[in-house]
């Protein structure tokens, strides 16, 4: 075999962290990772947050982001050692031999410059081609990546095109100087699911046609399975497993990899129909000062002790529905009936019991807890407020709740900043449970969490439902989560419910066009899935 394009040996990466109120300390992000990439191959780097995957990816350009230092090992690119190369040598290879596509193209494009100027910049500054040649190549790439108006889109400014389009423009920017290696750093993570699939397909085709090698970094195994030849699984800055894509997703050898592969397989058998605890009838709402309805004539029922999943992409109105039910956004028409009584439209008109029986859990547990209150205060306040519990009684009940969320002793005196992401979300669940609610509204409660942690939260929610008989209104954009938890499903699109019913019915063909698009866009852990989906689509994605 020929010399590899990229060979990393014993890579050690360190950084200085600044914990609040403590002296700075040195932390090691990557502990001796080896990696080899041949010309024209695609290697997927996968792991949860803190696995060091982006840090390793950027080391292929000998770049440390935000004070990160490449302190040990060797990095050979095209046969040259680059970890210790001087600034001039690095400038010569960055943007020429290796290029980079970031997660947020919207932030990575200079807002003050036209797209074309930025796409061809490195080709010109490295003297690779003339301006005419570079522009022609850029236009050809725009076309290949499926951008609308490929001949004129270059003259637009970044804020004038959509997020999905900008992500493709950034891919064009990376491919324009004909590099040997492109680093894709979570390029589709920030996109809606139906847009993600288009961008993913465009990137895959461009990689294949230009015969470039790539490092593809993501936390989503199903996504990387579509584009990578090989996959490296990382955890806490160490390699867990390396193998060919088929082997990793079908025959993983390590427990951690097996857990990652099986994470979406949680399945939930729907419960039999039951009388509703919550009825939403013909709800229409708009925000003050706007002139269009964000909710259009929405009607759904939620049976006692069951889960209604509300699914949709950003802008579908699913979170607005939650705000209307809680009373934060009084609807302009329609009615909400809860436990047999009609709820007042606005918050001020609701009784203490109305408020107590409907609780809410948020997407970002970080901002949902007051950083200056201890876990004991956070969970204890509803006990005191609704039930008048004080002193030892309160402490006892707090500990019971902590046991229920599987956190055990010693947490009541801690502050939110001392908890992990999953623990924070569990405390938020305990705070909701403390009120003895009949309904908990869960707004994207797992989407900010790593897959394994999210899995644990879903299992906990299901257990609590079985024990306490609480109903969930579960808002999410992720269909895998829906399968795992829902009894009923409402699919929302542009403020209206387009499909609604028992889970099995909703997920059973024939589908309406939008539900079909949404369902088919969820990446499946199967090689070749992407091509099949693209070939069979009925509808262009909604938001690109």
């Amino acid at each position: 075999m020929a010399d590899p394009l990229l060979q990393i040996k014993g890579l050690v990466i360190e950084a200085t962290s600044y914990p609040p109120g403590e002296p700075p300390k040195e932390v090691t992000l990557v502990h001796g990772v080896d990696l080899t990439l041949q010309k024209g191959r695609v290697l997927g780097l996968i792991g949860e947050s803190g696995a060091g995957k982006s840090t390793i990816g950027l080391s292929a350009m000998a770049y440390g982001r935000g004070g990160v230092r490449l302190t040990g090992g060797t990095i050979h690119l095209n046969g040259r050692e680059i970890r210790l190369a001087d600034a001039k040598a690095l400038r010569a290879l960055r943007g020429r031999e290796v290029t980079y596509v970031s997660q947020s193209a919207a932030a990575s494009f200079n807002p003050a410059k036209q797209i074309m100027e930025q796409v061809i910049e490195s080709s010109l500054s490295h003297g690779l081609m003339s301006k005419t040649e570079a522009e022609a190549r850029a236009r050809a790439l725009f076309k290949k990546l499926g951008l609308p108006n490929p001949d004129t889109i270059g003259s637009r400014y970044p804020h004038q095109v959509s997020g999905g389009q900008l992500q493709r423009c950034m891919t064009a920017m990376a491919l324009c100087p004909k590099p040997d290696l492109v680093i894709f750093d979570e390029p589709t993570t920030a996109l809606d699911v139906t847009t993600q699939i288009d961008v993913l397909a465009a990137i895959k085709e461009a990689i294949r046609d230009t015969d470039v090698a790539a490092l593809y970094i993501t936390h989503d195994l199903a996504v990387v399975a579509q584009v990578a030849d090989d996959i490296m699984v990382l955890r806490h800055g160490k390699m867990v497993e390396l193998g060919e894509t088929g082997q990793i997703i079908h025959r993983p050898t390590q427990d951690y990899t097996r857990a990652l592969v099986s994470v979406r397989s949680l399945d939930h058998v729907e419960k039999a129909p039951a009388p509703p605890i919550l009825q939403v009838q013909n709800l229409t709402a708009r925000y003050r000062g706007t002139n269009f309805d964000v909710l259009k004539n929405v009607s759904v029922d939620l049976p006692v002790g069951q889960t209604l999943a509300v699914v949709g992409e950003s802008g579908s109105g699913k979170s607005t529905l939650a705000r209307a039910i809680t009373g934060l956004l009084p609807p302009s028409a329609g009615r909400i009936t809860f436990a047999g009584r009609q709820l007042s439209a606005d918050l001020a008109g609701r009784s203490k019991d109305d408020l107590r029986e409907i609780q809410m859990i948020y997407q970002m547990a970080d901002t949902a807890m007051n950083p200056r209150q201890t876990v004991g205060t956070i969970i204890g306040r509803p006990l005191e407020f609704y039930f008048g519990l004080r002193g030892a009684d309160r402490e006892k009940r707090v500990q019971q709740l902590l046991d229920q969320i599987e956190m055990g002793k010693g947490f009541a005196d801690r502050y939110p900043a001392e908890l992990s992401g999953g623990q924070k979300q569990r405390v938020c669940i305990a705070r909701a449970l403390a009120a003895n609610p009949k309904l908990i509204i869960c707004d994207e409660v797992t989407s900010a969490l790593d897959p394994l942690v999210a899995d644990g939260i879903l299992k906990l929610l299901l257990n609590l439902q079985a024990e306490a008989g609480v109903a969930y209104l579960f808002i999410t954009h992720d269909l895998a989560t829906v399968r795992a938890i829902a009894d009923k499903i409402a699919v929302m699109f542009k403020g209206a419910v387009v499909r609604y019913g028992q889970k099995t019915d909703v997920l059973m063909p024939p589908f309406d066009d939008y539900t079909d698009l949404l369902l088919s866009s969820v990446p499946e852990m199967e090689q070749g899935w992407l091509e099949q989906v693209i070939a069979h689509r009925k509808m262009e994605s909604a938001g690109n």
Partner: protein
Amino acid sequence: MHPILKLMVQRIALGLLLLLAVSAVIFLGVEALPGDTAQAILGQQATPEALANLREKMGLNEPPLTRYFQWLGGVLTGDLGTALTNGADIAQSIGQRLGNTMFLAGCAAVIAVPLAILLGLIAARYAGKWPDKVISGITLSTISLPEFVAAYFVIFIFTQLIPIFQPVAMVFPGMGFWAKLNAVALPVIVLVLVVLAHMMRMTRAAILNVMQSAYIETAELKGLSPMTVIWRHALPNAIAPVVSVVMLNMAYLVVGVVVVEVVFGYNALGQYLVDHVTKRDLPVVQAVGLIFAAVYIFLNMLADVIGILANPRLRHPK
């Protein structure tokens, strides 16, 4: 109408409205404060008849709103009334002094602005390293100095330790340009010192803010040289915040000028204002106060307008 034009018209209209409101506060607000103009002129020993006479003569018995509109009409036509203390025409007195103030502030601005931007760039380029620490340390101290304190240290240094300048700044009509420059050297040094610190610190912060953007990393990962990155990618986005910083600090100059003129006995608007505050000569104070307020509001408006013009999102709407 192009959205950017609309925004600019809105901003300018807001500025004019603000100026009108300020003029009302300067006139009517001051009326509402406890204090009696006639008493102030004649002193505590004045007889009631004398007070009544003076009030009648000055039109103080008219309703305040009527007098405000008379005053405002006068301001708009260039008639600022006469000073209580010596009966001199206020517009005329201001005319001569305004030029002197402009000359002083202009000299300070011409030196301070480029110097502050340059130092700000250097501090941002070497953020956290010694050039930054030296510059930031010195400016932190000068920020803590009121104008007159800085002035006396400068006077002491340049008239006693290294006697090369005069401690007073006398300018008079017919003086040559270079002679004038020499005369204002010390006050200019003081003003530069005072304005520079604020302007430099804010410029540094504005540039550092831009340098932390993701698109700067993109540019670095394209293999561009540091100068190209700053020149082509940072500068176009830093213009608006830096201009806004510069304008904001020109406003500090407005305040600085008042004090510095008093320190150096420089015959201009600030000294004129302070003099007449001491003498409780209200018409003069109101007129000069309005001029300072107008300059300040104009500078802030200019900063916002340039900010609007420099924003690519507004210049190239969807």
